[in-house]
């Protein structure tokens, strides 16, 4: 193996698999393997902090090692690696023990990605058009980075319990455990206000409303869709809108001619 065109894929391949490769110096190869695994573990611990806590150091390191063999790094930026980790967890034995793990991983990944998305600005001028008589013909512009996760598990409660420290954590863990026993699913929205990632649980009525706006369904039609639901009374548009603007869930208004 003297050509650099053979050496490079050969070394990469040897680092990525676990078998003995006698053509490479053993100590050197082991050093690169250890470094790769350490980098992978560090990267996933940053991108999936709640999963890291849920699994603990040993199981997390083992999961990272297996995932690395399954989905090697394809670009030089470790922060972009891990998008298929939630699906991989779903198929792994770990989700049999912790069935909510894949959804927690999805939430971790959304949160991680949110920290890297382009900064958005409120479009105040467009929001002034909401006072026009035909405002119902347009739709609200939802923060493009906002993600919605519908889960069979109390993901918001589990998330909160793993994002606080000290005495508060125990109470939140107990609360999350109770919801898990009760099989209480939660739907959450996760988005960024300025530089801070925000997360909160939403009712199914609010979920429908937000999804309508994301699909650019006009406000009048969104109200119509919402009214078909039994729980429509739980969504109060008048109080929701100022709060949604204040928190950058809504960042503007799109009049029909602008679509």
């Amino acid at each position, binding site marked *: 193996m003297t050509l*650099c065109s053979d050496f*490079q894929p050969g070394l990469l391949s040897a680092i990525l698999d676990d078998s003995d490769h006698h053509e490479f110096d053993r100590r050197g190869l082991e050093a690169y393997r250890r470094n790769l695994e350490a980098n992978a573990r560090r990267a996933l611990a940053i991108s999936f902090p709640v999963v890291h806590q849920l699994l603990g150091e040993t199981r997390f390191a083992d999961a990272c090692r297996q995932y690395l063999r399954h989905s090697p790094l*394809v670009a030089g930026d470790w922060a972009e690696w891990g998008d298929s980790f939630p699906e991989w967890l779903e198929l792994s034995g770990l989700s049999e023990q912790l069935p909510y793990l894949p959804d927690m991983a999805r939430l971790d990944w959304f949160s991680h990605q949110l920290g890297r998305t382009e900064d958005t600005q409120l479009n105040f001028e467009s929001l002034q058009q909401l006072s026009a008589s035909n405002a119902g013909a347009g739709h609200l512009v939802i923060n493009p980075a906002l993600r919605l996760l519908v889960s069979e598990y109390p993901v918001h409660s589990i998330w909160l319990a793993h994002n606080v420290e000290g005495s508060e954590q125990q109470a939140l863990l107990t609360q999350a455990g109770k919801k898990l026993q009760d099989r209480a699913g939660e739907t959450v929205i996760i988005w960024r206000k300025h530089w801070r990632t925000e997360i909160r649980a939403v009712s199914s009525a609010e979920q429908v409303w937000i999804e309508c706006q994301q699909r650019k369904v006009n406000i009048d039609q969104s109200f119509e869709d919402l009214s078909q639901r039994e729980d429509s009374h739980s969504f109060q548009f008048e109080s929701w809108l100022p709060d949604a603007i204040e928190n950058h869930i809504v960042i503007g208004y799109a009049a029909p001619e602008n679509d």
Partner: protein
Amino acid sequence: MSRTWFSDRTPVGIGLRHVHYHDALAAPADIDFFEVHSENFFARGGATLGVLEEVAGRYPVSLHGTSLGLGSVAGISPRHLDSLVQLADRISPALISDHAAFGQGVVGEQLVHAGDLLPIAFNESMLQVMTENVLQVQERLGRQILVENLSAYLEPPGSTLTETEFLTELAERSGCRLLVDINNLAVNAVNTGIENVAVSIKQWLDQIPATHVGEIHLAGCTPAQPGGLVIDDHSQKVSDTVWDGYHHAITRFGQVPTLIEWDTQLPEWQVLLNEANKARRIAEKACNALSENSFQEQPV
């Protein structure tokens, strides 16, 4: 936009890592520049990028890449290069650098990245690959880059040139400059069983033309376990051997921007400032010695 340095002293910088963002911005430091890992700022927005923009408003910033893969036969990832160009446009860095290493290649039918700096053979064929890659990067960036010598944990087959011959030729063919990492020289010397590491470092430095050197890196690392390799983990203070090499480097290369690199087991901010001050004192001493020698050599 980054300031450039106008100091008449050797510019000394610190590698800026996440845990020290607050320290770097809380109070002015006697630091000539900060160096960051480019890939940590490839995001399109968010707090981390915001911090870097704030730092760049106060200090010159050097963008140091770890995964461009300048020595990759598979070439440079266009997406990676786009991200670097975008970051450079945003930060206006004083320096941009990466390594004489490969990172990505095709395994099976899939392009994979090692997430690491893998060694290259020093021969004509690799020289052509690297020259082409460096030229491509410099053309996209519209500026010169620096290429760093590597600490390698195995020796690729097929080398026909020494490392210094290879790097010198690379600088001449591509117009890049060199980033000399003195700890990497020490690590390689120890790992290949060289007895007198200090002499080996000086010999290496003496073989590099002074005009090609644009930056120096200084770091320390964890000593090797018995029978094991020294890993360049940037986890310790700079060793005496590396300081000794640095003094020699300044006498050879002059007032070259110098960086204290510390990436793992990060110490208190003050420890880094102390290391930077030490570098400045050694550089000053080396420059004084150089002036005295020049003075003594003047004809009477």
